[in-house]
């Protein structure tokens, strides 16, 4: 029994590090462990015999060396070893040789009688082993020397606790082992299902991790103790070869996973987290090595990583110190496990008595640990619940406080917004008033500019009309007087009567009177006066016609019109104003296409530009008759459409470059303050824009200015 436990300890001992697992091999052999028969074994070094040598040849080999340990530990060499055991037929016949190692990869057993093989058991499971361990019933043979040859190989360290006992005894021990491990497996299964159930109902992944932990740690224990077939692993030789490695890797990873979550290592012991990351990486390597068949390396790595179990203790302590309560459960549970391991090792070392408790300390400790950790997890539920409730309460309070704050803020903001809105509205109202005022002012200025234009128009018309009215009215009076003279003579002629002598005298008197009245001159004068009256009437009619074109001065209606007519009408009005100031040269094209326009507004345009031109000429030192304003009109036919052009040129000083760009700006004027609004050309621009007309200003200082207006026809 005691011997059987040594391999259970193996895994845990490996967890304690290389030194721990070496313990039973080197110093574990104590005097009161007679059941282990390691000292009766002999080992044949690997290089002493060919790998393919026959058992008899091996048996006769000269290189056999005795083993100085009750439990031989051949280490992990990834090679096969030959072992020789010389039996004592007188006492051991019909007894049972048990090899208490369930994790050997290869075990070939040959029974020799006087150096000849009498039976052989090739393969691990070919033996009628009792329980989980392979073994061999020792037959009662009559030979001088009866011995057993064993060829063992394993990817794990080869530890060989061998005993020879009554079959009944072996059977009883195996039974006991089965019961205890069955109970152990039962406890683990209950815990596993319980935690799995918790995982599905609570959803906390701790339980899943713990489930995995139980599964893998329990699995490792069972596999190490020869119960791997419970998992059905014996069906696959590939898996069976690697079961210990895989369970080792998985239990290590599950432990790390579980501890990480349970101890909240990330939060409380970040240093440990980093270390565990490294271990995880090493486990991954070990796994890959196992898959690849490098069992020894894999096993050594797993063993090395098992030391992490100790690191969890300072980690748990630190977590407790930092106020993490559940870590206490962990520590206590873990301590049970470690104590179990220690007891087990001490038992194997002979430092504590060998009995049932010490023998099964491992599964017992593990079971207690599993149960305790389950309780810890269960309490963690409560803890979690409490924390969740607290957190929820806190959140609620926070939310309420936030809500209150938000409410306060909202009120404050609302008040602010209200205040600002009112300010803005007030500002807006002020701006609107200002805008209204500006608009009114602008309207007034535009209106005054228009009125100025109308004023000029009416003044011009008045003057133009004055002359014809003057001479027509005056002439008509004179005409009446002239006709009175003529009538007087006519009356005289009508009155002539009597004898021819008398008539001759009367006629002579009339002739004298005619001479007196200078009737010849009167006749001529009458013709002149009539011409004048006719001319006056015609001119008046012309002016009135011109006026009719401008009768829409205020209307915005577009009509089809001839630009020449408009220009002539404008000129009729302007000419009288210009007469004493400037010479007007007019060259209007005979035929122009009509354009859609607002005649009244175009008159304003022409008047404005021509007036500017006339004023420009007056800024020169030229005598009046050399001051020139030239007005032309012509049409152009271009692919993109024809246009009518009007050019107004003067021989004034020209526009300096620095103000050329400003002349169309509102309120820009070169006239002294009070003499111009500065709106003239800006209004002109507005009107021309309404006509979709383009303006070109050709000017250079000293050589006059020409405005060219291009109207789309």
């Amino acid at each position, binding site marked *: 029994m005691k011997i059987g436990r040594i391999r259970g300890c193996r895994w845990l001992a490996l967890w304690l590090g290389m030194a721990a697992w070496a313990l039973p091999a080197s110093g574990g052999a104590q005097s009161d462990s007679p059941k282990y028969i390691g000292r009766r074994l002999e080992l044949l070094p690997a290089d002493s015999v060919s790998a393919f040598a026959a058992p008899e040849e091996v048996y006769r080999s000269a290189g056999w060396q005795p083993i100085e340990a009750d439990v031989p530990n051949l280490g992990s060499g990834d090679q096969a070893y030959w072992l020789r055991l010389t039996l004592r037929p007188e006492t051991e016949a019909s007894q049972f040789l048990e090899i208490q190692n369930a994790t050997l990869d290869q075990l070939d057993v040959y029974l020799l009688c006087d150096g000849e093989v009498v039976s052989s058991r090739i393969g691990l499971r070919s033996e009628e082993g009792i329980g989980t361990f392979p073994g061999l019933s020792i037959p009662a043979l009559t030979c001088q020397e009866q011995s057993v040859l064993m060829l063992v190989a394993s990817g794990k360290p080869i530890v060989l606790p061998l005993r020879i006992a009554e079959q009944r005894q072996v059977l009883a021990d195996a039974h006991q082992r089965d019961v205890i491990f069955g109970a152990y497996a039962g406890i683990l299964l209950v815990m596993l299902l319980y935690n799995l159930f918790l995982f599905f109902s609570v959803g906390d992944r701790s339980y899943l991790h713990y489930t995995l932990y139980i599964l893998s740690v329990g699995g490792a224990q069972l596999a190490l103790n020869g119960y791997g077939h419970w998992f059905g692993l014996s069906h696959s030789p590939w898996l069976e070869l690697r079961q210990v490695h895989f369970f080792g890797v998985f239990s290590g990873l599950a432990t790390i996973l579980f501890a990480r979550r349970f101890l909240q290592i990330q939060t409380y012991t970040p240093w440990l987290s980093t270390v565990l990351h490294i271990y995880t990486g090493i486990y991954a390597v070990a796994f890959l090595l196992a898959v690849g068949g490098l069992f020894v390396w894999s096993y050594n790595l797993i063993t090395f990583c098992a030391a992490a179990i100790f690191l969890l203790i300072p980690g748990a302590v630190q977590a407790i110190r930092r106020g993490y309560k559940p870590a206490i459960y962990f520590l206590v549970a873990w301590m049970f496990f470690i104590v179990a391991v220690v007891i087990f090792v001490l038992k194997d070392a002979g430092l504590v008595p060998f009995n049932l408790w010490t023998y099964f300390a491992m599964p017992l400790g593990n079971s207690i640990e599993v149960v305790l950790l389950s309780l810890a997890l269960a309490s963690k539920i409560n803890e979690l619940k409490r924390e969740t409730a607290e957190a929820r309460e806190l959140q609620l309070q926070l939310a309420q406080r936030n809500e209150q704050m938000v409410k306060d803020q909202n009120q404050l903001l609302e008040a602010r917004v209200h205040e600002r809105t009112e300010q803005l509205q007030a500002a807006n109202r002020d701006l609107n008033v200002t805008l209204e005022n500006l608009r009114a002012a602008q309207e007034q200025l535009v209106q005054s500019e228009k009125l100025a234009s109308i004023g000029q128009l009416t003044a011009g018309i008045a003057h133009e009309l*004055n002359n014809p009215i003057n*001479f027509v009215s*005056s*002439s008509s009076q004179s*005409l009446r007087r002239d006709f009175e003279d003529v009538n007087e003579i006519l009356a005289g002629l009508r009155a002539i009567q009597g004898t021819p002598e008398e008539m001759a005298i009367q006629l002579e008197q009339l002739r004298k009177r005619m001479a007196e009245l200078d009737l010849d001159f009167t006749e001529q004068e009458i013709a002149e*006066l009539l011409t004048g009256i006719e001319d006056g009437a015609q001119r008046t009619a012309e002016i009135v016609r011109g006026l009719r074109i401008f009768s829409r001065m205020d209307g915005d209606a577009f009509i089809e019109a001839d630009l020449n007519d408009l220009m002539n009408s404008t000129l009729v009005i302007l000419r009288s104003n210009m007469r004493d100031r400037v010479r007007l040269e007019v060259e209007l094209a005979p035929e122009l296409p009509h354009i859609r326009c607002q005649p009244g507004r175009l008159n304003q345009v022409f008047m404005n530009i021509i007036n500017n031109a006339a004023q420009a000429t007056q800024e020169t030192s030229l005598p009046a*008759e050399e001051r020139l304003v030239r007005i032309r009109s012509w049409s152009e036919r271009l692919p993109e459409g024809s246009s009518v052009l009007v050019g107004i040129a003067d021989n004034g000083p020209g526009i300096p470059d620095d103000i050329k760009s400003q002349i169309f700006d509102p309120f820009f004027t070169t006239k002294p303050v009070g003499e111009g609004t500065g709106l003239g050309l800006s209004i002109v621009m507005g009107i021309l824009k309404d006509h979709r007309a383009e303006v070109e200003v050709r000017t250079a200082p000293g050589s006059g200015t020409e405005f060219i207006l291009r109207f789309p026809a």
Partner: protein
Amino acid sequence: MIHVLYLDDEAHNLTAFRAAFRRSFHVHVTTEPTEAVQLLREHPIEVIISDQKMPTLSGVEFFELVMPDFPDPVRMLLTGHADIDAVIDAINKGQIYKYISKPWNESELYALVEEASAQYRRKRELHSAGNKLLGQLQEARHLARQISDALQEGIPIDEERLAKINQMAKNIDALLSH
């Protein structure tokens, strides 16, 4: 009859003016300022009427032009357009006597010309009286010098001369009191 000169660039106005006033005045009309100057030279013009707005020079400019040579004729400005600045300027400088706006009223214009003519004649009379006075003053001064010379040389003054001086003093007195 009064000699009136009318200058206007509008020929029809000239015709109408002449037709209206040829029975009352000696009317001289022209559209050309140079011809107007010629007419001033050739005729004893008493009243000059000129249109203000003309293509080559304005009425006021024309008056300024002829003032040095012909200061006496009374000048009247005729215009259809109230160029008020020019009118004010002209009146202030004493260049024109009256301002007439078109269309003219014939009888008013007639009266104005008559009035202007009277003005001219008064001026003329004043002018001739002044000349006469000046002549007599010189003569008196001459006599007075002779007397003073005679007295210095101790020559006795005869009755005849004294009577002559007295007569002159009386004349001057009469002229001045006129």
